C-alpha cells in the first residue's frame, strides 16, 4: 500500500509539473486550445475516412477495389493519427488531472491499445496473404474479423473521447482506480 501511495504521489507531482511547462502555458492561451481541438477532429476524420473504409473493404464492402490499391490511402490515416497524438499530448500536458483520473479517458486508451494490437496482428499475420487479393475477391474470415475489430475500436475511441467532458474527476467517480 505504501508503495502504491508513493507512486500515486510521484505521479501527481509529475502531472502537476507537466502543467507548469511552456506547452501547458501555451495551451492556455485564447485560441490554442480550440485550434488544437479542431486539428484533433480533422485528424479523427482522416483516420476514420481511410482506415475505416479499408476496414469496410476487408469486411466485404466495395469488393471491386483491390486491397493493395486501397491500402495506398492508409498513410493519410497515419498522418491523422500523428496529428491526434501530438494535439492529444498537448491537452494531456496542459490539463493532466482532467484526463489521468477520468474513467472515459482510461477506456479511450484501452480502445486505442486494442486497436494497436489489432493492427500488429493484421500486419504480422494477414497483410501478406491479402495484399494480392484482386477485384471481387473476398478477404478470409480472420481478415474480416480484424477489420470489424478495428472499426469498432476507433468508434469506441471517438465515443470515449467525446464523453471525456462528462466524466471529469470531480463530477463523476465510479471506477475504483481513479
Amino acid at each position, binding site marked *: 500500500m505504501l508503495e502504491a501511495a508513493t507512486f500515486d504521489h510521484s505521479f501527481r507531482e509529475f502531472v502537476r509539473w507537466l502543467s507548469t511547462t511552456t506547452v501547458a502555458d501555451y495551451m492556455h492561451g485564447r*485560441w490554442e486550445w480550440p485550434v488544437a481541438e479542431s486539428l484533433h*477532429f*480533422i485528424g479523427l476524420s482522416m483516420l476514420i475516412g481511410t482506415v*475505416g473504409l479499408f476496414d469496410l473493404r476487408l469486411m466485404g464492402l466495395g469488393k471491386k477495389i483491390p486491397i493493395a490499391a486501397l491500402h*495506398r490511402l492508409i498513410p*493519410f490515416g497515419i498522418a491523422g493519427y500523428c496529428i491526434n497524438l501530438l494535439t492529444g499530448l498537448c491537452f494531456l500536458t496542459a490539463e493532466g488531472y482532467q484526463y489521468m483520473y477520468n474513467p472515459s479517458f482510461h477506456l479511450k486508451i484501452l480502445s486505442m491499445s486494442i486497436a494497436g494490437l489489432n493492427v500488429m496482428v493484421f500486419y504480422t499475420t494477414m497483410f501478406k496473404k491479402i495484399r494480392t487479393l484482386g477485384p471481387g475477391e473476398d478477404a478470409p474470415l480472420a481478415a474480416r474479423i480484424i477489420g470489424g475489430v478495428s472499426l469498432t475500436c476507433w468508434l469506441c475511441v*471517438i465515443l470515449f473521447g467525446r464523453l471525456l467532458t462528462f466524466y471529469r474527476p470531480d463530477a463523476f467517480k465510479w471506477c475504483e482506480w481513479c
Partner: protein
Amino acid sequence: MMQIGQWIESTAFSDWIKSSPSLLAFPFFLVLHAWGMGLLAGANAAMDLRILGFAPRVPLSAMVKFYPVMWIGFVINAVSGILLLIGYPTKALTNPVFYLKLGCIAAGMLLMSWLRKNVVAPGNLSRSNGRLLALFSLLVWAGAIVSGRLLAYTCKYLLAGSPC
C-alpha cells in the same frame, strides 16, 4: 433569431435535451455527431484524395460503394445536429460561425453529388475541373469541422438572454 430560440427553449423537449442526466441524451447526441462527422467528412476526404491522384489503382467507379457510408454519416449528423440545435437554439442561431458551418456542409454535399455524377460513377477523370472540385471539397469539409468546433468558443448567448 433570439425569439425563435426563446420559443424553442421553452418547449419541454428542449428542456429534456439540456437537463436530462442520461448519457443517452445530450452526451450521446454529441457522440453521434462525432461519429457522423468521421464517416461523412472522412469518406469524402478519401474519395477526394483518390480523385486528386492518390491510390491511383483504386477503380474510381468502385468508390460509389462508399457513398452509402457518406449518406449514413450525413443522416446521423442531420438528426443529431437538429437535436443539439433544439437543446441550445439561441447559441447556434445567433452565431455567424454557425451559418458558415451550414454553408460549408451545403457546399460539401453539392460537391459530393456533383463528383459522383460527373467523375466517380462514370470513372471519368478527364473533366478538367474534377480535381479542382475535389480539392475544394477537402477544404469545405475541413471548414465545416473547424467552424463546428469553434461554435463552442465563439457563441454570444448560451440561451436567450444569458451570455455564453
